[in-house]
Every structure is written in structure tokens, then in C-alpha cells.
């Protein structure tokens, strides 16, 4: 019954941010940009969603990038090439609707810059002009700059402290581009929810269509439990199978932000226990 989800390669991209290639041929065979996998590091682990960053049908691997922020991602980070994860399923979610557009602006912040890579690539591959805006807290946490550059017509970088690119947020860059007269057909965004909320408001102000890839808490990943439910246009939607992408201007952002904080107490307790126990599985 058991499958082997072997880690093939692991790369440390920044402090606490890791890239991992996993052998999962049946997922690699059908993966599409914008989809994600559900992962359990070990038997007692949580089921967590992670965006598919890249994959190879031929070689049968999939790539994920994650930041170690809690027990589940820390456990995942402990796996070395040759070791196997307990469970991986996918691809989950509805793929990004990719079509040839004149100009697409991709906005991505933090660890989610990696999640923007397959989307930028897909739009570029169909002949769209891709303007990417990526941002992080500081230069040392800025990941995937080269990868994004390789699939973008133009790249803009921001850091909160100004240690790389302009000082400020990705939303500042988006605002100045739109203010200077850029009229993209689509703003596609992924990153911290607050970033997406702000970028969504900016896009709306300039009358630009915007799509956001959401990151709510999930359990099943397949429309069964409703943990990931969000409100879009006043209606309850499941990010796991109707999303994770939705029209950004219709998303009730404040509700999503609150729902993401639901288990803060439990997460801290779990993390404390994990670290006090030596931080191993």
C-alpha cells in the first residue's frame, strides 16, 4: 500500500527556506501551473498544502519550496536526499488559466516567489509579456531571483529594508508601475495575505483585473472538510478544489487573514514542544 515519495535533491535557498525535489512520477505526469500537493512529513504530521514550483514528466520529479515556520515545515526540512516522505498527493486545485495576453504583471512576496515561477513561465511560454515584481524582507531572504528573471520580460525587486532593489513593498512597485501608465491585462499575485489584499486594492483602483493564489489552512485538500473555505463575492468557496486562485477583488481578505490566525496558540505550543524535544522526528 505504501508509496515511496523519495527526496531526490535538497537545496537551502536562504535561512529557513528550502527547495526539495521529490520523486512522484504520477503527479509530475499531470501537474499544471497553479496546482499544489498535500504533504505529510511523517505519520503524526499535519497535511499541508505546498505549491508545485516545477516538475519533470520525463524524470518523474516534482519541486517544492517552503519556509520553516512551524513544526510541519521544520519536519519536512529535516528530510535528506534518499529519505522518503510519509505521504504526498496531488496535483490538487484548479490550474491557472493561462492564455496569451499582452502584458501580465506577476506580484510575489517572500517564500511564495517560488510559487510564481511556474505561472510566469507559463505566461511567457504562450507569448505574453511578463513583468515580475518580487519582494522580501531583506536581500538574504530574497529567493528565486534568477529563476523569475529567466522567465520574465522585466523584473522589479523590493525589500522592506532596501538591502536589495527598491526599499518598500511589492505593492509600492505595483502602484508606481500602474501610476506611470502601465496597463496590464492581468495582475497575478501570490504571497502574504496582507500583501495580496493591498495589491488587490491597487489593481482595483486602476481598473486592472487581478487574480490571487490563496493560502488558507487546509486539511483534506479535496473538498471534503471545508477548512480552507473563504468568501468570494459573498459566497463560500473551497480554495482546495475551486481555487486556489480567485478573482482578487472579490475575495473577503480580512476574513481570510483572521482564519489564518486561528491556531496561533496551538501552533506555538506545538513548536515549543518540538524544539524542546530536540527538533527531530
Amino acid at each position, binding site marked *: 500500500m505504501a508509496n515511496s515519495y523519495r527526496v531526490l535533491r535538497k537545496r537551502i535557498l536562504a535561512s529557513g527556506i528550502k527547495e526539495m525535489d521529490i520523486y512522484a512520477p504520477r503527479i509530475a505526469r499531470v501537474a499544471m501551473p497553479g496546482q499544489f500537493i498535500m504533504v505529510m512529513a511523517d505519520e503524526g504530521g499535519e497535511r499541508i498544502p505546498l505549491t508545485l514550483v516545477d516538475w519533470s514528466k520525463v524524470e518523474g520529479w516534482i519541486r517544492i519550496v517552503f519556509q520553516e515556520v512551524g513544526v510541519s515545515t521544520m519536519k519536512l526540512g529535516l528530510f535528506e536526499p534518499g529519505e522518503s516522505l510519509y505521504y504526498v498527493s496531488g496535483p490538487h486545485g484548479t490550474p491557472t488559466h493561462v492564455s496569451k495576453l499582452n502584458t501580465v504583471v506577476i506580484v510575489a512576496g517572500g517564500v511564495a516567489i517560488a510559487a510564481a515561477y511556474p505561472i510566469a513561465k507559463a505566461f511567457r511560454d504562450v507569448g505574453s509579456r511578463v513583468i515580475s515584481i518580487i519582494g522580501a524582507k531583506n536581500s538574504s531572504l530574497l529567493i528565486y531571483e534568477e529563476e523569475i528573471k529567466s522567465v520574465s520580460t522585466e523584473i522589479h525587486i523590493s525589500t522592506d529594508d532596501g538591502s536589495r532593489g527598491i526599499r518598500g513593498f511589492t505593492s509600492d512597485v505595483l502602484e508606481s508601475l500602474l501610476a506611470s501608465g502601465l496597463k496590464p491585462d492581468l495582475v497575478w499575485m501570490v504571497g502574504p495575505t496582507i500583501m495580496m489584499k493591498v495589491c488587490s486594492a491597487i489593481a482595483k483602483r486602476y481598473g486592472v483585473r487581478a487574480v490571487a493564489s490563496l493560502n488558507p489552512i487546509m486539511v483534506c485538500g479535496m473538498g471534503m472538510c471545508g477548512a480552507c473555505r473563504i468568501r468570494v463575492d459573498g459566497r463560500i468557496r473551497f480554495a482546495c478544489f475551486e481555487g486556489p486562485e480567485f478573482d482578487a477583488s472579490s475575495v473577503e481578505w480580512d476574513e481570510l487573514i483572521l482564519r489564518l490566525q486561528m491556531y496561533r496558540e496551538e501552533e506555538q505550543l*506545538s513548536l515549543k514542544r518540538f524544539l524542546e524535544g530536540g527538533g527531530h522526528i
Partner: protein
Amino acid sequence: MSKIKSRVLIPKREPLERLKDFNEVALGYSEKEALEEASRCIQCPSKPCVQGCPVEIDIPRFIKLIRERRYEEAYKVIKDKCPIPAITGRVCPQEKQCEKLCTLAKFGKPIAIGALERFVADWAREKGVYIEVRNSNFNSKNGKIAVIGSGPAGIVVASDLLRLGYEVTIFEALHVPGGVLTYGIPEFRLPKRIVNDEIKCLVESGVNIELGFIVGKTITIYDLLKEFNAIFIGTGAGHPRFLEIPGENLSYIYTANEFLTRINLMKAYLFPYYDTPIRKGKYVAVIGGGNTAMDAARSALRLGAEKVFVLYRRTKSEMPARREEIANAEEEGVEFIFLVQPIEFIGNSLGAVSEIKLMKMRLGEPDETGRPKPIPTDETISIQVDVVINAIGFHPNPLVPMTTPEIKVDKRGRIIVDKEGRTTMPKVYAGGDIVVGEGTVIEAMGWGRIAARTIDRDMSFL
């Protein structure tokens, strides 16, 4: 008829003791109790009880074998029709099926068939009696069958077709097989080691189970048909329904599916030893009156709630839950508020639910279900809560039909099948909750049996 002896009650743990953990509540018969209960069976030649069994277990025969202490043979008789007797013996609503038709039911003292089935199954488990699913009738037939979903319907299809000699692969999306038996029904009603053992038995008999495989995503029905001769869809009714009232996305308002999945599948009741958290409420409201609502309410008590309220829009006599489960919940201290309908959830500044506004209802004329229709009054009340569980019901799982337009569904999202389980797509069959909406474990198994027969018959014409 004072000569009729009373039923031997199945021993249960005391409410105060069982509330301390998630261990099983009903303890099962001792051999002595089983023998005493079996001795009450009058062995009617017409076997009315069998007609009440969706999988047609030869009930009088296995009870007779118990009386003769021939437990292994009794187990074989049950196993011949039911691949998972330790499970059905625990969760079947026998009072609506076999026991309802028992001749002694006319005197209010039906044989405790479920408890006897459980006794035999547990005896076999403890003794390590293992019965090959492929029995002596084994005649190898050519054909590969894909079963989607490892819940009760899928288990029966797999087991029946394996016995007929087909090669069977079950595709399960989650990381553990069993479907609703694993994620839905709590440990205190159905210990997961029992589910694991019953499924292990199936795997040892030769059924292949692929975990983490989401049909509709990892592979389509079209791709499966290139590799398999027939497909059975048993993906269940796992898609939650909502009340569609304000505040429904406030934090700590769970669907019963999420609440129970966190507890049963992810073992959140053992957090932080298991990583998945669950919010342990002090004042918990459960909305709904079915078995799922009882499971959720009793789970919430075990997580440490001070008060658990079940909110139901009709009265106790209309509750769809089993009487036994309602009684268990009452014994454990669950409080029931009848004739109320939630109309709004109110939250605090952190987005956490803190209050439910309820409309008081009264009962009117019978509706299409035959039950009196709840009618709103103009009176509302409020209760303070910190966790809410919505157990009002489910829709069929939309994933497979959504990705396979040839498989037609009705207005309620249920896959349309003929009487024999054929969908509108050739070589594709379906059964269980994906077809009926919301049924029981044993009803799903009954569907599985029908579909397995049809698949075998259709394959013979190929």
C-alpha cells in the same frame, strides 16, 4: 408471552469514565453473554431478519453456530456475505434493519443481532482466524477493476469481485484507507485498529490499495479506462453543506467533516503528540440531529468542553440519529435544544465565533420527508459559544463528476445510476452515498454488492 427472556444488554463503560478518553464505549459480549443471547433465537424458518440485511447475511445460521460454540464456522457464514463484520456489528442501525424484522421484535425483545455479529468478529480477530476472501468457489475471471474510494461501498465491491477472480485496485485519496470509517466515525464507536485489521485482511487476500491517488486529479476516469475493464465510483457524500447565514466563516466554526477528520484521521485529540491541532471549546454548539451530530457532540465533550449543546430544528422524536446514539449522548451530558434554527453567527474582534442567534421554531404539517415541517416563530434567543460544529449534512463529493461530464448527476449532485448501479458512462458504475446522498455504512455496502454483481454480469458479455 412472558416466557420470552429479555435481551442480554451489551456492556458499556460508565459515562463518567468513558468521557475521559476516546476509547470504545460498548464493550461487547463475553462468551457467556453471547451464548445466552444466541439461545433466545427461535430460528424461524422464514428468516425475516435476513430480508432486513442489505448484504443478506444468513443470520439464523450464524446464531445457531454460536449456540453450538462453533465460532469459526459462524465467522465464515458472516464473512461469506460481509467482508467487514467487526465494523458492521458495531455501526449498523440494526434496529431499522435485521432486528426490526426479527420475530421477537413483535414482543419488543428482538435478538441483539449486531452484538452477536460483533462477538463473532471480535472472537475471530482475537484468535487470529483468517479467512481467505477468495473462497472455494474461486474461479479466475479475466478483468481488471478499479474501485474509487476505500469506504464501505468500495470495500464490498473489491471483496466481491476479488472472490470472483478479478484483479482489483482500490484508489484512495487520503493517506489511510477506510473512507468514512476512518475519517468520520469516532474511535469511541469504531476503534481504528479494527478498521485497519479488516482492511489488512482485504489486502492480504489480494486487493491492491493505492493511497494518495485522487481520481479526477492524479488520474482521470478516461485514463483509468485504458487500464481497467470497469470502474466503480464509491466516493461518498463528503462535501459539507452550509447554513448560508451571516458569520458562517468565523473562526472555530467547523463543518462536522473537518471537526471529525481532524480528530479521527489526524488524531488531533492527541495533539500535541500528533501535529494537527483542534480548538477545544468550553461551550460548544453542534447543529443538526443525525448520527454525525451525535459523534461531533460526544467528541467535543471528550476534548474537554464544559457544555455541549445540540441544536435541532425539530424535536427529539424527529431526530434522524439512532436512538442508541442519542441515549449515549444524553448519558454523557450532551444538552439538547429543540425547535431552534440558527440564523446568525456573531464573532469577536479576533474573528472567533462567540454567539449564535437562534430562531425558535414550531412544528407544522408534514413535509415531503413525512416529518412535520419546522416553521419559524418570531421569537429569537441567543447562546454564547466558542466552538460551533455544523452537522447539517453533506452533498455528494463533486470531484469525479466534475472532471467527467459523461457521468450524469442529478440536481443534488448525486451520480445517476440504474437499478443495477450503472452510471450514464459505459463501464462505469457507482454506489453508496455518491448515489443516494446520505445513507448508512451498510446501505453503501448493499449498493456495493449490487454493483459488483452487475459488473460481473456485464463483463461476462464482453
